[in-house]
């Protein structure tokens, strides 16, 4: 399983691996918003946590269809499925690799982009914390969606439609945590809900992902 993780990370880093794609998209969204909204700093800093969260979520969505599609096309998914690795292990590793190459870079760059949006000083800690807690859930849910649509040509649209509603709870509590933290309000409830969602999907969804993957490989 470590071998699979190393391979996936290596593939993502090499040319055409799509490592920078989500990051670039996130950057573009956040840079463009101030142009669209106008230069009013008080408004910008108020909506900054929400913009960062929506941007991160869409950037995450953009890279989902690559999780299984590439392995499916060149036949390695069949070979992996018949290898000693359990299907649950494969989907878990895929989710981890997706988070390391997409989620984690977004978490790291978010505070930098926060400057562009005039994020208040106390907000930086909360935006990083909320993204750090929430993005793993985005990767795990996305892996489930990717497993559902593997084998469908141009399955990207269907994948987005399937996954978006599942992303909503994470977005609500993640953005709420960042907003409350930024405004200095009490953060206990959204923090626990966000952590709870991430723990629950990480514990349960790999089994569902593995099951639909097996069906799709038939």
């Amino acid at each position: 399983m470590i071998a699979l993780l190393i391979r996936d990370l290596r593939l993502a880093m090499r040319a055409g691996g799509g490592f920078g794609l989500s990051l670039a998209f996130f950057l573009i969204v956040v840079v463009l918003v101030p142009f669209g909204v106008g230069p009013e700093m008080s408004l910008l800093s108020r909506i900054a946590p929400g913009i960062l969260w929506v941007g991160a979520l869409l950037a995450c969505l953009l890279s989902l269809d690559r999780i299984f599609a590439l392995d499916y096309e060149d036949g390695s998914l069949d070979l992996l499925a018949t290898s000693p690795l359990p299907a649950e292990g494969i989907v878990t590793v895929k989710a981890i690799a997706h988070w390391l190459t997409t989620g984690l870079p977004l978490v790291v760059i978010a505070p930098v982009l926060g400057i562009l949006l005039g994020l208040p000083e106390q907000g930086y800690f909360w935006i990083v914390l909320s993204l750090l807690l929430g993005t793993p859930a985005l990767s795990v849910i996305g892996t489930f969606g990717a497993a559902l649509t593997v084998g469908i040509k141009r399955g990207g649209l269907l994948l987005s439609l399937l996954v978006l509603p599942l992303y909503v709870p994470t977005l609500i509590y993640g953005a709420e945590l960042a907003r409350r933290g930024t405004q200095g309000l009490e953060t206990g409830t959204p923090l626990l809900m966000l952590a709870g969602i991430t723990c629950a999907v990480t514990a349960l969804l790999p089994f569902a992902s593995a099951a639909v993957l097996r069906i799709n490989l038939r």
Partner: protein
Amino acid sequence: MSLHVSNLSVSRGGRTLLEGVTFDVDAGHALILRGPNGLGKTTLLRTLAGLQKPEAGTVHLPEEDAVYAGHLDGIKATLTVRENLMFWARVFGTQSIDRALRTFELSDLLDRSGGMLSAGQKRRLGLARLMVTGRKFWMLDEPTVSLDQASVAQFADMIRVHLASGGSAIMATHIDLGLGADARVLDLSAFRATTPKLHASEEAFL
């Protein structure tokens, strides 16, 4: 370490393709599947590999012995030959890739990236993967496609060595590998399903 298949029916897309397939493959032997295109050779191999469920009948094969190689070789274009092969070695818990490299004369290509290989070289890399897995029972789908004559001979040698060391293989191929008495040919036309019908329960998953 042998494969027992009895009364197996396989289906694809809800249509039964083969019915009542029965055969045994013992250690040290090979079985060659023959039959026209679209008969269900690939589907049968995928069923044996566990990628899909049999429609009926039983397959008895210790799962930890088997390795499957399909039409596609699963080669990553941006990884080098060494990285591609080492990955499968690690997945299957074996360490040495030297013997496979020597058998298929891939040593000179070690640092070439997968995308730069020709079709025949890719196939050779795909077959080298089989040796790297260290598994005893090989399931091969058209293993000689895009190989030149010399490579086909290498492949036949590799199969012979594999059989002599107590391994076995089942493969769908149209060419004669000259494996001699260790290889039995099974023409699947005899098992063609007579009543191709749609299964309502399966349709939901199409």
